[in-house]
Every structure is written in structure tokens, then in C-alpha cells.
């Protein structure tokens, strides 16, 4: 009698184990896995090493070295309207498709540096961070994006540092703006805290700042 139950148990336990084993065998490997930990990612993101400066980009374009591969993540329409010489168009919606992702991984292995860019830097920021975390070590991002590179290119021989590309620089003196002080006051405070007040050289943004509000 007792043996009878035991036989049933053996069959049931065997089936249970079998289901698990079948599950393990047929399990699909995930296509994407994080290779960097959060801490490593944060360190990579905080250091400026992975940002390709405009000056460096200009250098690369002049020397036409094949070490760098520009990847344009904008839509094909935008790409046709104008792009960096030698850039490859992989729209963001297809960036992680199987063949494109394989290609990106491959070029990473070939010691090629991938330089991602969009219209502005923020467009390429998240895709770049993801590629980085997925283990494509040599992924870089073009500082300022396409628009600012184009704006800087006419000034190619110019060695003057071009600061306008970084959207993270405070364009306005927030404090003064909010206080609504007069123009004269702002100028004096500009001297007191110069690092706060890097104004964009565009007249459009300059005048409201002066206006106080």
C-alpha cells in the first residue's frame, strides 16, 4: 500500500524535475545583458572621456582616419538632408535590431570607436549610455550633436574654444533673473560669479536675460 504512494510520488517528482529541465534546455538566452554595473556606468558617465569634443571631431574629419565610425541615429530623412562625412545611418528605432546590434558589437571588437550623434547631444545620450552598459566599450558620444558640429565647422581654423554646444551649461543667471534686477546689477554680479554666467552668444537668448523676465 505504502509503496503504491511512493511510486506515484516518484513519477510526480520525476515529471516535476523533467518540466524544469525542459524549461532550462529550451530557455532563450536574453539578447541583451548589462556588462557594466551601475557604479561603473556612473563613473563612465561622469568622466568626460567618452565624450568626443567638437575639436577632436574636427580633427578626425580632417585626418579622415578610419579609427572612428560616426553613427547617425536620426531618421533617414534627416540623414539625407545632411550628415557627417562617412557616417552610417542607423535610426534609433533600429539601433538595437539584431543585425545592427551585431554590427555595433563587431565594430567594437575591431577596435573601432563608434561615435554616436543625433541632432543635439541629448538625442544620442540615452542610446549611447545603453550601448555602453551593454558592453560596447568603445562607444562615444559627439558633444553637442550634429547641429553644433555644423555650426562649428565654418570656424575650423579657429582655435578659440567653442562653448555653445553644451546644453548643461546654465545659459541664464537664474538668480538674477528671478530677482528681476536691472541690467546694471546683472553686469556687476556677472563679475562676482563668472562661472555661473556663461551666456550663449546668440542674441535671441541674451536679450531676455537682460530683460529680467
Amino acid at each position, binding site marked *: 500500500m505504502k509503496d503504491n504512494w511512493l511510486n506515484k510520488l516518484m513519477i510526480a*517528482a520525476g515529471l516535476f524535475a523533467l518540466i524544469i529541465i525542459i524549461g532550462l534546455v529550451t530557455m532563450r538566452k536574453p539578447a541583451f545583458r548589462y556588462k557594466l554595473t551601475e557604479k561603473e556606468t556612473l563613473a563612465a558617465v561622469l568622466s568626460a572621456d567618452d565624450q568626443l569634443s567638437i575639436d577632436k571631431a574636427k580633427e578626425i574629419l580632417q585626418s579622415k582616419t578610419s579609427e572612428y565610425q560616426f553613427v547617425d541615429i536620426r531618421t533617414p530623412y534627416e540623414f539625407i538632408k545632411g550628415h557627417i562625412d562617412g557616417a552610417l545611418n542607423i535610426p534609433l528605432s533600429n539601433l538595437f535590431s539584431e543585425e545592427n546590434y551585431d554590427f555595433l558589437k563587431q565594430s567594437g571588437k575591431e577596435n573601432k570607436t563608434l561615435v554616436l550623434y543625433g541632432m543635439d547631444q541629448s538625442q544620442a545620450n540615452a542610446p549611447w549610455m545603453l550601448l555602453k552598459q551593454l558592453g560596447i566599450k568603445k562607444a562615444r558620444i559627439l558633444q553637442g550633436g550634429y547641429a553644433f558640429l555644423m555650426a562649428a565647422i565654418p570656424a575650423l581654423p579657429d582655435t578659440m574654444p567653442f562653448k555653445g554646444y553644451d546644453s548643461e551649461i546654465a545659459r541664464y543667471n537664474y538668480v538674477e533673473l528671478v530677482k528681476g534686477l536691472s541690467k546694471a546689477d546683472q553686469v556687476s554680479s556677472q563679475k562676482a560669479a563668472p562661472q555661473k554666467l556663461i551666456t550663449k552668444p546668440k542674441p535671441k537668448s541674451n536679450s531676455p536675460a537682460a530683460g529680467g523676465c
Partner: protein
Amino acid sequence: MNTSSTEDRGKRYLNPYFGGFLLGLVLLATMFVTGRGLGASGAVKSTVVQAVNTISPAHVEKSKYYSQFISDDIHPMSNWLVFEILGVLAGAFVSGALAGRLKFKVEHSPKITSRTRLIMASLGGLMFGIGSQFGRGCTSGAALSGMASMATSGFIAMMAIFGSAYMFAYLFRKFWI
């Protein structure tokens, strides 16, 4: 499956490992479907809270303990345990009927009377009622389900319950052996 006598029939229980395996599958299925484990004392608590709420809603609102669970009642799973316990009653009845164990009786050691047994049972129930509130669940809710889901609380509850029962076992031996 030959049955020799009714007495033998009444005692035919599952192999404990087979029973445990089936219980594990039921628990796994419960977690798979509802995302929570099995339980029993929670159903009693829900019933108590509901009953007190019907009799005197003001009291529930005033009471710090009841009021926690009344607000929780918006949650669709709050009454789940009550239905689960109704299922337990039905399932146990079916199993008892199939094995011929349905019978009104007080089970006790020959050394004690039914009256003693009933007093002990009511005291035991009282203890379990209080203890399950401290432990946030009983043997099935906190210990069994907790262990299956690897909750720290489950292991603490299991060790505390069985440890204390072994500790007190000597005092109560004459009620059982």
C-alpha cells in the same frame, strides 16, 4: 486498493512525502496565480474585522488595530483568504468523505476526558489567535509560505513556533501520550 476493514480505511493517509509534494505544488500554484502564499489565520482576522465592523463601525474606526485592515479592504485580494478557507473546508470534507473519516467526535488521549481536551483546544485556539497576530501569520501563512518564498519572517516564525512547542512539549505530555 483493497480495503480490509473500515478501521483500516479511516487510517489510510497519504505517504507524508507525497502529501508534502502535493502541498508544495498547491503552494507553488497559489504563488503563481495570486503572487501570495496560502494562509489561514488571516481569514479569521478578516472575518473578525468584518463582523466587528458590521456590529459597531465606530469601534473599528477608533481601534488602532482594526482600522489598519478596514482601509486595506479596498484591495481586491483582501477577502481572498476567506474564500481560500471556504475552499479548505470543502476540500477537507471531500477528502474525509472519500476516505470514510467523516464522524463527529472529540479526539483525545485515553488518559484525559473529552472535557479536558475541549478546554485545552479552546485555550490553544486562543493562544494561536493572539500569537498569529504578533507573528503576522500562522504556521501556514507565515512559516510555510514564508519559507517557500525565502522570507526572513518565515524562517523566524518556523523556528519560534516549533522551538517553543518542543520546549513546552514535556509539560503537556500527559494530554497526548
